[in-house]
Each structure stands twice: as C-alpha cells, then as structure tokens.
C-alpha cells in the first residue's frame, strides 16, 4: 500500500483552478522531487498534503490518515507529515532548543526531559547541537533551516514535505542543508520536495514529477525525466532542444 495517496485532487482559489486533478502515490522511503515553473501548482500541491490549503475535490491520505477539514483529523495527519518552509519560520522568541522542544511538549505531551533529550539528538543529527541555547536570529540562514528540519524530525513524522527549502539561502549555504536532506533520504525517510536544485533531484530522488498548469505533466525516474524528456513543455523547462 502506498504511504501517501493523492487521488484526483483539485484546488481552486476563487475562480482560478490551480490543481486540475492530481494523482500521485508515494511508496514508503521514496524521495520525490516536484519541479515546474512558478504558478504550475507545485507548492500548492505540497501545502494541500498537510492541510495548509484545503482541497476543493479529490482525496489525500497519508498512512491511512485522511485529509479532512476538522481539527482532529488535521492533527492526526500533521503528526504523520512534517513540513519545512522556504522562509524557515522558526519561532523567534524561543531558543533553538525551545523551538525543537515546544511542539513535542504541547502537541504530544512529552515530558520536558524526554523532549529535551530528543531535541538534543535531533540537533546533533543536523550538526547544531552546540547551538541549543542560541536564538534563531543569531544563526545563518542555513543553520536556521537545519534547525527547522530538526524541529520537524523531533515530531517523528513518517514523511517530510520540503517547500523550496533552499530557495531563500545564499548559494554557499545551500550545500549544508542539502547534505542533511541527503542523509535523511539515505536513512529511508519519505520525502516530497519542491525544488529548483536539479542536480540534487537527479542524484538523490527516486522519482521526479514535472508539473505544468496544474497537472502532472510528466513523471518518472530522474534519468528518464532529465535525459529523455517526452513533452515540449518539459524540454523547454529543462532547456534542452
């Protein structure tokens, strides 16, 4: 059975239909890159998976948890998928440690010492154990994004959604974040990432989804998609003629 099942998903903002019937099944441990022009609906698709946007039609389920518009279902779903954002969105009033501890104690009711131990483990995992007591504004963008990853991992999700997580970073900081993601992929974490890092997608991903005008236009293993694009839209997007 697939881990994430996206079936005939439609999404409209007002009269504009952004997603026009998306079907995508993701197996456990798969790493999926979603590529496409801006406005193709790739970020919206990602945001629909954990209910940040409500879908207008179709269905989404993650490990059996259905996406439904009520607090209880949303919480169940969000405990299964973590999300990492382009703008990091760390809580600026809390320390790095506090950021990683908060949702564990508040949402999962984990006891403080256990939550702190988990936070330290996750921060070590992204190489930032020594920044436990620092505040987010004392960190570089790359470090902030790694904290955001640790914060999501501390909730022990089965899958992670990454929404252009390196797009707001200075070029020299991209590598450190991608290295963390690469490690996660190697450890078997299921990942769905909207990305512009084509080389990374090619190296790490099991499948690449090319979205165009609200539809999955082409899908396949990275070698096929990048080396042998079938449609003129993908060829144009990749710059091959």
């Amino acid at each position, binding site marked *: 059975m697939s881990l994430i099942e996206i079936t005939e998903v439609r999404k409209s903002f007002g009269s504009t239909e952004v997603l026009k019937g998306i079907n995508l099944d993701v197996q456990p441990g798969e790493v999926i890159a979603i590529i496409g022009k801006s406005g193709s609906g790739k970020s919206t698709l990602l945001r629909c998976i954990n209910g940040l946007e409500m879908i207008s039609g179709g269905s989404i389920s993650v490990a059996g948890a259905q996406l439904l518009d009520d*607090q209880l279902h949303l919480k169940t779903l969000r405990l299964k998928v973590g999300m990492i954002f382009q703008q990091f969105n760390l809580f600026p009033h809390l320390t790095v440690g506090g950021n990683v501890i908060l949702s564990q104690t508040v949402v999962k009711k984990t006891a403080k010492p256990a939550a702190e131990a988990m936070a330290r483990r996750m921060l070590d995992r992204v190489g930032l154990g020594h920044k436990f007591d620092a505040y987010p504004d004392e960190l570089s963008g790359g470090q902030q994004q790694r904290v955001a990853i640790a914060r*999501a991992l501390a909730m022990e999700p089965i899958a992670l959604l990454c929404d252009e997580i390196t797009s707001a970073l200075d070029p020299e900081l991209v590598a450190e974040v991608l290295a963390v993601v690469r490690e996660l992929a190697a450890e078997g974490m299921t990942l769905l990432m909207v990305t512009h890092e084509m080389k990374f997608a090619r190296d790490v991903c099991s499948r690449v989804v090319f979205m165009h005008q609200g539809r999955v236009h082409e899908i396949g293993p990275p070698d096929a998609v990048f080396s042998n694009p079938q449609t003129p839209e993908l060829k144009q997007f990749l710059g091959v003629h």
Partner: protein
Amino acid sequence: MTEFTLWDILRNLLLATRWTIVLSLVSFVGGGLVGLLLLFLRISAHKAVRIFARCYIELFQGTPLLMQLFIAFFGLGLLGVDVPAWLAAGLALILWTAAFLAEIWRGCVEAIAKGQWEASASLGMGRLQQMRYVILPQAMKIAVPPTVGFSVQVVKGTALTSIIGFVELSKAGTVVTNATFQPFTVYGLVALIYFALCWPLSRSSQMLERKLNVAHRNH
C-alpha cells in the same frame, strides 16, 4: 465669607484624584480582561463569532463614551435597575476600554508573520496552542507600547464620569469652583494633576517602543 488657601483647594482635588486613579485602574484591568476575550472572539475560526465581536467593537468605537455612560446610568435606571454612579461609570469604561484594546491587540496579532501560523499548524498545534505558545508571546512585544499609550485615553476618559455624578477629579473641580469662585486656579490645578498622571504613561509608552524595537530588530 470663608477664605480658601491654595493648599485647601489642592488638598481637596488630590483627595478626589484617588477616585480618578481607582476608576482608571478598574477600567484598564477590567477592560483588558474583557478585551482579551473579545480578541479571541474577533479572530475566532467561526464567522458568526467574529461578526459578533466586530459589531461590539464598532458599536463602542462608533458612539461617544458620554452616550455610553448616559445609557449605563439612565438607561438601566429606566428599566428599574438602580445603578449607582460608580457602577455605571466603571461598567461603561470597562466595556469602552475593552473595545479599543481588542482592536489594538488584533492589529498586533495580525502583524505576526503568516509563516508562524503555518509552521506551528504543521507541527500539529491547535488554534489555542498556536495563540498561547507562538503568536501571543510575539504579539505582546509589539502590543505593549500602544497599550500603555491607550491607558492615557482611559485616564482622560474618566473625566466624563463627572457628568453622571461620580465624584472624581473633574467633578471635584466643579464642586471646589462653586465654593471658591476661582475657576481659573481650580481648573488649572485639575489640568496639572491630569497631566501629572498622563505624562509618565505616554513617556513610558515611547520608551518601551524604542526598547522593544531594539529587542526584535531582526523580525
């Protein structure tokens, strides 16, 4: 005819100032609590609740405080409820303060970046948890200066309660003037006392604004 010294006048005014201070504190604290409740209603997930809070706020912001005092004092009296002046004054000021504070605070909550809501929601937090642990701690920082600034309006608002017969600083000014026939001296002193109450508040509002701005320089 009795001669009044300046000290006689000032002493009586200062005694009445106590009531201005008490009424201000009651209005501000009471208004703060009701205002917090209104804030939650105003940004509730339910549309009907939001509309109710908005109507309340519009009503109290869109009518003069004086009318609200009259209605609390005379209106309830007409219904056969005997409302003493202090109760009507306190009630009207609390409700009035709440409307303004709720709207000030709503602005502060909405100033928090949308990403903070999205990140905390993605971690599984419910709406109240988001407010309590993520949004309000940040919103409070921006809310302090305008809130303290608004307290000046509350202090000055208490002057209106003299019209329904509550004896605070302004009412005492009228009484003392009637006895001394020295309106300029008396009201001059009344004004100075109000200034002495309000100026530290507006000053601290400015200072807090500068200080808190430094504290979240990067956000």
